[in-house]
């Protein structure tokens, strides 16, 4: 059904045909025709952010909590450059985003025109793919292709740069059904021989572990379901990465908690001592492996990933299976069942006994206090008081993020939105905006640090405009806590520029944004204050004043192996090699 229309109208048609309900954006000169076309339709709702970085993070929150593609619309020049941090964040964490940018008219490209920048040049390394649409004849195809590329294979951000004259030009619109990418066809099914080899390895394991990541969540709810099924069938312990929290229920006794730099003792030691490791949709990131030449020295490794370049990138594996987690896990579960595989029960029982010993070490324990709120306690209480509700959690980046990962328990996927790969301070507040847009009836909490949250505080204004009752729960220790912790442990306690003097009064700040401000600095008042926060049907900034000296443990110091992790009660002995100090 070919229809004659302008480029700007094509954009709105394509968004509608792709099932987009909301787009996060900010107008400007080079996208005025699209905003004009938007004005005369009501299918796609526009959410006006206060900064383009916020638009991308909001779209990320929307995408990660729904599994759909998040959409962004920004203008040329500064609109596009402001979006770059968000795009890079989405690339690192494999979040499907389509970002439409305006561009100066084609005849002005390259002339240093007002608000011109080389958007496709700038965003080439921080997108999965990008397009500059020079002709109206290409526009509808490119728009549909962008959604296909963003969502298929390993998801990621796609930029479509549309010059203003192309937005005004008239052409023929084609719908999504007639558009297929020429060559891009990611492989979904894994190689059956390799899956058989993997099952064979797993069935002979004495000390197995399943290490699962964000890929399981990206693959959809079926993958999480299959992961649970495989764990039940095999009886193997499961640990998940920061990005993978919720794919396996935290309440399940087979779950060892998060692994990695601030992971649990039992998860990291089990990774170190295992003899067969099944990595599902994770990428052996340096936060996970610690010192790479001492990583899990005695194990055979199986790696399932949709991105072939993830396999053998950091860590050599024995069986690399390229495919979508859900597809591969389905085959794996079927093969395991059909061949009635049974592991060595005695060995597995011994392994669990060993794991229980590590568990008994209680690596997340902290010294509680009646005078001052411990940050861990604050998050424990926040979890306890919200666990029966329909909750989504976003975070900023730093200590509070790690504590949230350790102490907030997730039993379902898509409930936890955090900036893992890029570690973007300022992610959580706009992400919460996006999540609340997607789930208007749910309780959306940004567990924040007072330093991070100030980086995108302006988005409170967005929350106010759309009456989004997001809860900004600030773990306020007056420091860039993770920077302070590293300075304490690695730089002789010289706290260079990590203390924020002259913090705003967060309660007054909340009021200035038409939100509700709550401050709490006593452990005894905390429960009541949290209940008050939950009950308010408006945006809230909760200033939770915590112990400024608390450090985040357990911790694998930089350049150390999993079995050299430092627990909170033995932190005095922490030594880091010169080589370790070089790592971040």
């Amino acid at each position, binding site marked *: 059904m070919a229809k004659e229309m302008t480029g700007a109208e094509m954009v709105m048609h394509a968004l509608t045909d792709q099932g987009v309900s909301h787009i996060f954006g900010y107008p400007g000169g080079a996208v005025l025709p699209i905003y004009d076309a938007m004005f005369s339709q009501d299918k796609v709702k526009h959410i006006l952010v206060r900064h383009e970085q916020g638009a991308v993070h909001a779209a990320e929150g929307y995408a990660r909590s729904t599994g759909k593609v998040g959409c962004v619309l920004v203008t040329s020049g500064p609109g596009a450059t402001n979006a770059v941090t968000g795009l890079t964040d989405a690339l690192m964490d494999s979040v499907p985003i389509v970002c439409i940018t305006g561009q100066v008219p084609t005849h002005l490209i390259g002339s240093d025109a007002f608000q011109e920048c080389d958007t496709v040049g700038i965003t080439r390394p921080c997108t999965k793919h990008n397009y*500059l649409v*020079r002709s109206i004849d290409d526009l509808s195809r490119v728009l549909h292709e962008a959604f296909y590329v963003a969502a298929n294979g390993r998801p990621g951000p796609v930029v479509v740069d549309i010059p203003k004259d192309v937005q005004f030009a008239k052409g023929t619109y084609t719908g999504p059904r007639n558009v297929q990418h020429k060559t891009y066809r990611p492989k979904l099914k894994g190689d059956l021989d390799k899956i058989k080899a993997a099952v064979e390895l797993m069935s002979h394991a004495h000390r197995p572990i399943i290490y699962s990541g964000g890929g399981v969540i990206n693959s959809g709810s079926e993958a999480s379901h299959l992961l649970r099924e495989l764990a039940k069938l095999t009886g193997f312990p499961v640990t998940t990465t920061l990005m993978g929290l919720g794919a396996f229920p935290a309440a399940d006794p087979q779950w060892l908690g998060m692994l990695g730099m601030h992971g649990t003792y039992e998860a990291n030691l089990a990774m170190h001592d295992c003899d067969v490791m099944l990595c599902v949709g994770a990428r052996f990131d340096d936060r996970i492996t610690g010192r790479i*030449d001492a990583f899990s020295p005695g194990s055979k490794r199986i790696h399932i990933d949709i991105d072939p*370049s993830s*396999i053998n990138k950091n860590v050599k594996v024995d069986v690399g299976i390229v495919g979508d987690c859900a597809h591969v896990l389905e085959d794996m579960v079927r093969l395991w069942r059909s061949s009635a595989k049974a592991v060595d029960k005695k060995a597995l029982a011994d392994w669990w006994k060993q794991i229980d010993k590590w568990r008994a070490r209680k690596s997340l324990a902290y010294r509680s206090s009646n005078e001052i709120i411990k940050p861990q306690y604050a998050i424990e209480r926040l979890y306890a008081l919200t666990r029966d509700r329909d909750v989504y959690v976003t975070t900023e980046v730093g200590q509070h993020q790690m504590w949230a990962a350790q102490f907030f328990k997730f039993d379902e996927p898509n409930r936890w939105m955090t900036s893992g790969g890029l570690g973007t301070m300022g992610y959580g507040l706009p992400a919460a905006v996006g999540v609340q847009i997607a789930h208007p009836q749910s309780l959306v909490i940004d567990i924040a640090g007072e330093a991070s949250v100030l980086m995108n505080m302006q988005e409170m204004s967005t929350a106010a405009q759309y009456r989004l009752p997001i809860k900004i729960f600030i773990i306020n220790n007056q420091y860039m806590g993770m920077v302070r912790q590293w300075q304490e442990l690695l730089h002789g306690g010289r706290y260079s520029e990590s203390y924020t003097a002259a913090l705003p009064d967060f309660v007054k700040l909340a009021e200035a944004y038409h939100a509700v401000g709550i401050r709490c600095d006593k452990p005894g008042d905390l429960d009541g204050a949290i209940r008050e926060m939950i009950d308010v049907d408006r945006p809230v900034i909760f200033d939770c004043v915590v112990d400024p000296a608390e450090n985040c443990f357990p911790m694998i110091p930089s350049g150390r192996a999993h079995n050299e992790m430092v627990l909170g009660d033995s932190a005095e002995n922490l030594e880091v090699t010169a080589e370790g100090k070089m790592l971040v």
Partner: protein
Amino acid sequence: MLTTNPATEPHALSILVDNEPGVLARVIGLFSGRGYNIDSLTVSETEHQNHVSRITIVTTGTPMVIEQIKHQLERLVPVHKVVDMTVEGRAIERELAMVKVRGTGDKRVEALRLSDAFRARVIDATVESFVFEITGKPDKIDQFVDLMRPLGLVEVSRTGIAAISRGPQEM
């Protein structure tokens, strides 16, 4: 892996790509962004009807790095196919160079005599200079250029390596 350090070796990669704006920048940006070397690069449209170009890159790395480069290239949306010509074996590699030599008398005669031995062609001449065109493997060209140096070498322009596999199969 970072810590083990097996020997690096040169590999010629043939890459078939959609001939669309920015595709070369994507390929080159991948190499610079991820810290890989480019020893040689050639690119030209090879299938006009299908808008397909062929890029040949010679890069140096450990086998694990080369494998990683191949996978990273395959991730790029407009890349159709990547073949490691060195691993496939028996690939033919050729390069073309134009070599300008200036001199008179014995040196001029010697330059002409050597060019004949290397099967180079004279494609421009003045009373005091030649431009030679020479085709061959890169080390043959290196050798020719070295020989021309004492005979009045002025400048060299090289195309970089093009590679193709032997036998009836396409890549």
